[in-house]
């Protein structure tokens, strides 16, 4: 994770987690690293990790039972929402960038489809 020093670090951690969940690196019910492990692996302040975990708990992304390591939530709805959120956020950025070019929607979708499949193919070939 590359840290942006102008944005609260805990929010960056939360987003990092969401990305991992969306990608499937974290699956429902999976144990996640302790705050200290997380801090060490991401090279951040344990307090920030703590704050990020707290935020994620509030959002229902993870849950912690006493004396057990935190786990990714098993609530599929929340996981879906996370995925949706990520997709929506990416699409938002994309839309914001492409809007000024004034491309017709059909053409845009066709180009996106071609590019996207090509990238997947290339990735698979590797």
């Amino acid at each position, binding site marked *: 994770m590359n840290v942006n020093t*102008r944005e*609260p670090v805990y929010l960056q951690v939360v987003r990092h987690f969401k990305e991992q969940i969306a990608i499937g690196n974290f699956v429902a019910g999976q144990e996640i690293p302790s705050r200290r492990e997380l801090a060490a692996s991401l090279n*951040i302040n*344990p307090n*920030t990790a*703590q704050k990020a975990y707290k935020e994620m708990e509030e959002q229902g992304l993870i849950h912690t039972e006493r004396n057990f390591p935190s786990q990714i939530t098993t609530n599929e709805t929340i996981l879906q929402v996370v995925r949706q959120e990520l997709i929506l956020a990416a699409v938002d950025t994309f839309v914001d960038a492409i809007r000024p070019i004034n491309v017709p929607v059909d053409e845009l979708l066709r180009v996106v489809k071609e590019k996207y499949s090509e990238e997947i193919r290339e990735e698979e070939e590797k």
Partner: protein
Amino acid sequence: MIEVKKISKNYGRKKILDDVSFTANKGEVTCLIGINGVGKTTTLKAIMGLTPYKGEILIDDQKMTKDSYEKITFIPDAPTMLPQMTIKQAMVFMSDFYTSWNPERANQLMGFFKLKEENRISELSKGNTAKLNLMLGLSLDVDYVLMDEPFSGIDMFSREQIADVFASHLIEDRGVIITTHEIGDIEHLIDKVILLDNGSVLKEFNTEEMREEEGKSVVDVMREVYQS
């Protein structure tokens, strides 16, 4: 909690510290930032009782006593052991005098830093000296760690290593005060910034709050403050 209350310090007519007040909490990394010669090191020395000052400093609501040194440790940027000692002897010295010495952590850090017990302190490079200091300081089970310029004059790889250890071994219930004039390496690691200039506190803020509320990095704030 370390409370620094209105401390002042002069060297002759020169004011080094002028009514400096701040607090550093347990479980937080507090960073004293400022360009060189603004009294950062003097503040740490004052807290450690290594220099006289006017004002009051309390550690967990108490004045410094000899037993406080089991609770608070200082990692200066110069070797604190005799040059003729080997690292092994330095470790024996520490375990001899501190009941808070944690040999397991020391061994762990030795391994991580790739330091060798038989090396003589006088033969260590600048980077390894800093690592040794860190190893000795962090292997004490203390509540507060004071670090003076842990990154100054050290190569990039050593810096990364140190920052790594910094993150992994500064357990959340310790309080850390660190001084630096190069914030870059650790900006994302610190909780609280005390901006010092000419011996007084210019600005004190929480880094995450600053990012959240104003979208500014510590460097941004520094630039603003020092260039105005």
